[in-house]
């Protein structure tokens, strides 16, 4: 892979990292949920250094076209991130329902008490 391509990939990884850090600084993303994004940004940033290793690893697991291994890894990381959101979304939906129930009961009790 030419050095210009490697530099481009590393720069893309660093840009992702900088974007995540900026989101955390502005309190739009918390440290917990930033963790997997930071991991993926860091992996992209260091990937150009590990190209011989990726080639060897892909041959070892029987993948003829090494970039396919990168796509597979990227797919796996995104799968974990999306799954994490599905779990968080389920929890939030349950909590939201529980809040609505409690709020409705509170309103009912308050109205009964009168103004």
């Amino acid at each position, binding site marked *: 892979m030419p050095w210009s391509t490697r530099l481009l990939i590393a720069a893309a990884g660093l840009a992702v990292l900088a974007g995540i850090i900026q989101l955390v600084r502005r309190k739009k993303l918390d*440290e*917990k949920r930033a963790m997997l994004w930071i991991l993926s940004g860091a992996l992209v940033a260091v990937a150009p250094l590990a190209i011989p290793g990726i080639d060897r690893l892909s041959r070892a697991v029987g993948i003829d076209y090494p970039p396919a291994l990168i796509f597979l890894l990227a797919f796996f990381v995104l799968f974990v991130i999306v799954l994490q959101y599905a779990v968080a979304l389920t929890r939030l939906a349950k909590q939201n329902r529980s809040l609505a129930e409690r709020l409705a009961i509170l309103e009912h009790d308050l109205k009964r008490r009168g103004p």
Partner: protein
Amino acid sequence: MKCLVVIPAFNEAENIASVIQDIRRQDAALSLLVVDDGSQDDTAARAREAGADVISLPFNLGYGGAVQTGMRFAYEKDFDLCVLIDGDGQHDPKYIPDLVAPVAEGRADLSLGSRFLGRADYSIPAARRVGMFLFSKITSWVTGQHITDPTSGFQAIGRPLIKFFLNDNYPVDFPDADTLIRLYFAGFRILEIPVVIRPRERGVSMHGGSRALYYVYKMFFSIFIALTQRSALRKEGSHAVEH
């Protein structure tokens, strides 16, 4: 000086009544608030029976959420300071006056009960001790102040700092070295007070071993973020003190 003792409690039915009685024995006039953090046991009922005011969260928000609920209550009810004390009986209430004094006298915005200036009557697991040592060193180095026990949950917090925390500055999971560094940059004064931390009477502690890796990541990343935010934190801190 109005002082509120906040006791965050999650599944502490076995310990909560004796914690409340202990505090009452120390000072019967203290205002007490138990924040029941979505417990599945009888924590709230036992706390009410023991004579404490209780807020029950509809579901578990975690330690940070429970403490923040207590601080919001203290702020809205015009308390001048609040004392945090764990619901598991590890914190001895006889140190409450020692923690309150520096904040009430305006010598500090946060007083921290340190088991390392005082004594820990129980053995701390080796891995946890390494983490505590490392992050207390980092905190001491950044703040230029000797901090021995940044994980201590036995604290007294003055009203300006409560206001700062309520402005989205309190961590969602648990406050630690990163929180101390943030509030140091915001211009708040921290003072450590020697205390004795007792072993848990019953039940299990909230710090599980599986969280260790996340903990190390969270501390380093959060401290890094704080280091990049010094001027914004200073502005926010002075705003909280002025109003």
